[in-house]
């Protein structure tokens, strides 16, 4: 079992209990997680090939061009896991640019669908390198909105170190679990704002033997997932 395997399973668990909704992962480890969830405990999930074809167990089962994706967004029957160049304690996320928007230090992708996603349906985040420059007191350009700005639900933030959620009275970020081998102090040191830390922080669930076999032999036999968190 590697750290990447733990991350895949933590991502998969984000979609647990979602039923027949469109799972939209960004990044390899979230994609492996969504496929693993669909193959095991969340068979109702819908997944695309990244373009317009819906896949179930790697076989085509339907058609969902972008215009239909926007209808799913508006209907709220979707749970996206996006990346975050910056994220704050209420889950406001930035993928647009770093620095002053009018003339950024670094131009990134743009807000993409993040504003619409976060006010319409469940959203989670995947951060492959948990660091203070990502977990910031204030993001430079609010792309996905957080709980203090009207988000429907920021479910979890999965990182290479831990799983975070928003199960606090003001729906600010809380440490839910640390991955095996990671200390609570390590997570706080890598986070640029104070986290709510319960007195007893559990360890992130370890993958089952069946999950490890699916990940290693079927979903990612080449082990590309290891590169995403290096």
């Amino acid at each position, binding site marked *: 079992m590697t750290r990447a395997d733990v991350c895949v399973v933590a991502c998969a668990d984000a979609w647990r209990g979602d039923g027949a909704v469109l799972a939209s992962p960004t990044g390899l480890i979230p994609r492996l997680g969504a496929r693993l969830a669909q193959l095991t405990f969340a068979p109702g999930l819908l997944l695309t090939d990244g*373009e*317009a*074809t819906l896949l179930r167990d790697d076989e085509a089962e339907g*058609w969902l*061009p*972008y*215009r239909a994706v*926007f209808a799913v*967004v*508006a209907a709220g029957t979707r749970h996206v896991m996006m990346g975050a160049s910056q994220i704050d304690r209420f889950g406001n996320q930035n993928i*647009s*640019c770093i620095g002053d*928007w*009018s*003339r*950024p*230090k*670094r*131009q*990134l*992708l*743009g*807000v*993409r*669908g*993040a*504003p*619409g996603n*976060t*006010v*319409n349906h469940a959203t989670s985040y995947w951060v492959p390198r948990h660091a203070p420059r990502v977990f910031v007191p204030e993001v430079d*350009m*609010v*792309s*996905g*909105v957080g709980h203090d*700005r*009207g*988000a429907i639900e920021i479910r979890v933030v999965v990182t290479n170190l831990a799983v975070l959620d928003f199960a606090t009275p003001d729906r600010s970020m809380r440490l839910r679990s640390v991955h095996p081998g990671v200390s609570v102090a390590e997570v706080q040191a890598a986070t640029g704002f104070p986290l709510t830390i319960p007195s007893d922080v559990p360890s992130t669930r370890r993958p089952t033997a069946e999950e490890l076999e699916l990940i290693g032999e079927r979903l990612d036999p080449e082990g590309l997932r290891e590169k995403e968190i290096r």
Partner: protein
Amino acid sequence: MTAGDVVGELRDGMTIGIGGWGSRRKPMALVRAICRAGLRDLTVVTYGGPDVGLLIAYGCVRRVVTGFVSLDSIALEPHFCRARQEGAIELTEYDEGMLYWGLLAAANRLPFLPIRAGLGSDVMRVNPSLRTIRSPYADDTELVAMPALTLDAALVHLNRADPSGNARYLGPDPYFDDLFCLAAKRRYVSCERLVSTAELMDSGPPQGLLLNRMMVDGVVETPRGAHFTSCVPDYDRDESFQREYATAGWDQFRSAYLDGDEESYQKAVAAR
């Protein structure tokens, strides 16, 4: 028409919508023709890819209206990023769904359409002219009033078209090419193959006929005209060429491929 004829109908300062999505089915031959003609001060409305990058590299762009600019397999568009960091272009940044809604409003001759996307986000801060509206019904919901994105011209690339402007896509996604045409005053379609109407009807199911001649003012046959973006099933994205575009020095790339006409571009690409 030829690509040159299309560009001859465009003017400096126009607002031009470009179909496709990211680095997929972009009317690149028409974009290259605009670059060669040296149009200036364009406002480009697009789900942005290398169309934006090339037009910026040639100094044609004053403003980009978009939700993202990306090469898909390469996350960031180098010319767009550089221009933003140098303050060389203006940007109107919307959520992707807002862009769709703005085209839909223009296509339906509505001044705006309400949408949830944008609420609470910095899209409202960087677009101070955006307004919200309250539902006049009992729910009283606050929504963004996304203004119509009316275009002077639309450029789209489809797999097959007939000489009148009926056209179909053969790949998996229509993107928003029909809406770009419906939102524009002048509409130009480039196609992989110009065929007879009968052959167009026979080349796929009726649902793939995205454009009819009421939505189109000019048709140009531009084989491999979406290169280096994808135009499936005719061809995939040219990943190695896209890498060269993204990593080679601009002067070197330009003189190797772009200084001549479209025919010499296609020859230089084929000779690599």
